[in-house]
């Protein structure tokens, strides 16, 4: 039997949510959160398996950051890639190979990524630092304009030991720490509530995994640096949905400097831009990997995630 109270409750719920509409940024934020988790997993073994794999790759392709032994036909030679003398555009395959080599030869640095999402006239920003030596990482900011702002870090308590995450939630003015067992067999911990940011490795994967979809736009100057710009356009099945992605790589080192993606669906337009840089592992740079909970914030128990196999 349905009572008046139950009927009014049902009606009240309907009124409460009658006008809510899911923003397109939620799916994008979820995708980036997922990507962040994948990156965290990679980070879990970055100082082990992947580094070894990278070293093997470097040896296999010629023993140094110079990349492929011979550029493909039509490409400029490695010695002629100075921006001032780019007489003809390199092929996408050549650029992809050089980016692959540059990423694989990343030294002992702190990678720094600044990402911005502009959605519906609002912009959110996040910063990521990643230590290529220890695998420690920190992310500060918000996934999207509608996401909560957090400051979170993940680091091993000792080499090969437990992994400690620290998370500051600015919305609730709380913070917590959580300790995970040592990482193994591809099951690394997740730093939690993903934020913006991708890595040069992701860009490399995108380039090398689908090089046929990219085109070299040409040389371009970015903040005073000579770069090579690549672009690809995509169009989804849904009418009026599509966008583009662009990558800027340094014209000499082939380091990834910037990515920018634009996507539009009917009534919605979003831009995601990420700028990449590498910092020497100075005390100041390494300090960016540490989270310091602000005074007045309350320490709380860590949240519990639903089991992976829900459903």
């Amino acid at each position, binding site marked *: 039997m349905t*009572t*008046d*109270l*139950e009927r*009014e*409750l*049902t*009606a*009240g*719920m*309907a*009124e*409460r*949510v009658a006008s*809510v*509409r*899911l*923003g397109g940024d*939620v*799916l994008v*934020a*979820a*995708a980036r*959160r*997922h990507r962040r*988790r994948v990156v965290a997993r990679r980070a879990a073994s970055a100082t082990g398996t992947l580094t070894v794999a990278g070293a093997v790759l470097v040896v296999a392709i010629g023993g140094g950051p110079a990349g492929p032994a011979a550029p493909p036909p039509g490409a400029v030679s490695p010695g002629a890639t100075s921006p001032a003398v780019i007489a003809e555009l390199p092929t996408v395959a050549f650029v992809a190979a050089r980016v692959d080599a540059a990423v694989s030869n990343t030294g002992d640095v702190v990678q720094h990524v600044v990402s911005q999402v502009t959605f519906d006239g609002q912009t959110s920003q996040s910063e990521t630092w990643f230590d290529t030596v220890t695998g420690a990482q920190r992310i500060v900011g918000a*996934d999207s304009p*509608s*996401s*909560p702002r957090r400051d979170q870090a993940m680091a091993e308590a000792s080499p090969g030991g437990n992994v400690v995450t620290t998370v500051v939630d600015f*919305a*609730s003015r709380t913070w917590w720490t959580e300790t995970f067992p040592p990482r193994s067999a591809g099951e690394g911990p997740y730093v939690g*509530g*993903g934020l913006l940011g991708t890595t040069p490795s992701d860009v490399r994967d995108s380039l090398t995994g689908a090089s046929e979809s990219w085109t070299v736009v040409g040389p371009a100057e970015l903040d005073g640096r000579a770069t090579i710009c690549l672009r690809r356009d995509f169009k*989804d*099945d*849904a009418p009026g*949905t599509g966008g583009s992605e662009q990558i800027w790589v340094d014209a000499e080192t082939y380091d990834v400097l910037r990515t920018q993606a634009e996507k539009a*669906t009917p009534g919605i337009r979003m831009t995601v831009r990420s700028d990449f840089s590498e910092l020497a592992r100075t005390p100041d740079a390494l300090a960016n990997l540490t989270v310091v909970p602000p005074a007045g914030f309350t320490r*709380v*128990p*860590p*949240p*519990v*995630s*639903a*089991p*992976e*196999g*829900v*459903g």
Partner: protein
Amino acid sequence: MRGRNTFDGLDAFVAERGDALLATAVLLTGSRAAGDDLVQSALERLMRNWHRMSGDPEGYLRRTMYHLAVDDWRRRRRRPEVFAPTEPAPQPDGTDTLDLRGALVQALGTLPPRQRAVLVLRYWEQLTEAEAAAVLGCSVGTVKSTASRGLARLRDVTAAWAVEETHTRNGVAS
């Protein structure tokens, strides 16, 4: 099985069902921002398991949202920020029914997470007790008792609204 690293069709699915998912999430969390966050978390879980999924992902997303909501709140003891103590209007007027509904939804946010989840499943999703039990992974008896306690609490909180009188005054059949 779906492709391991691609999410073909997810865009279209979210475009079609995203509003409904967000509505449930808002009721579970009590605020738009927290609802967005809950949907986002569930979508990320879906992406993790995308390669293992087959069929309609909505059931998985909804189950994940309910589990995330109940488990997260249980551990963090976090209350939605937007809910405040419910007070009846000092004098009855023509907006009583709407005010009562608002008060009920506000009071919903003060319930323990599992009670809130059961009421959302039963009275928003319109699931049967057996279906709600399946979603939450508990017995039908637990759903019955939890719903009963939740409704009793709502009844207590909104007792001052004199439901029957309000309905009579506004001409709503009871």
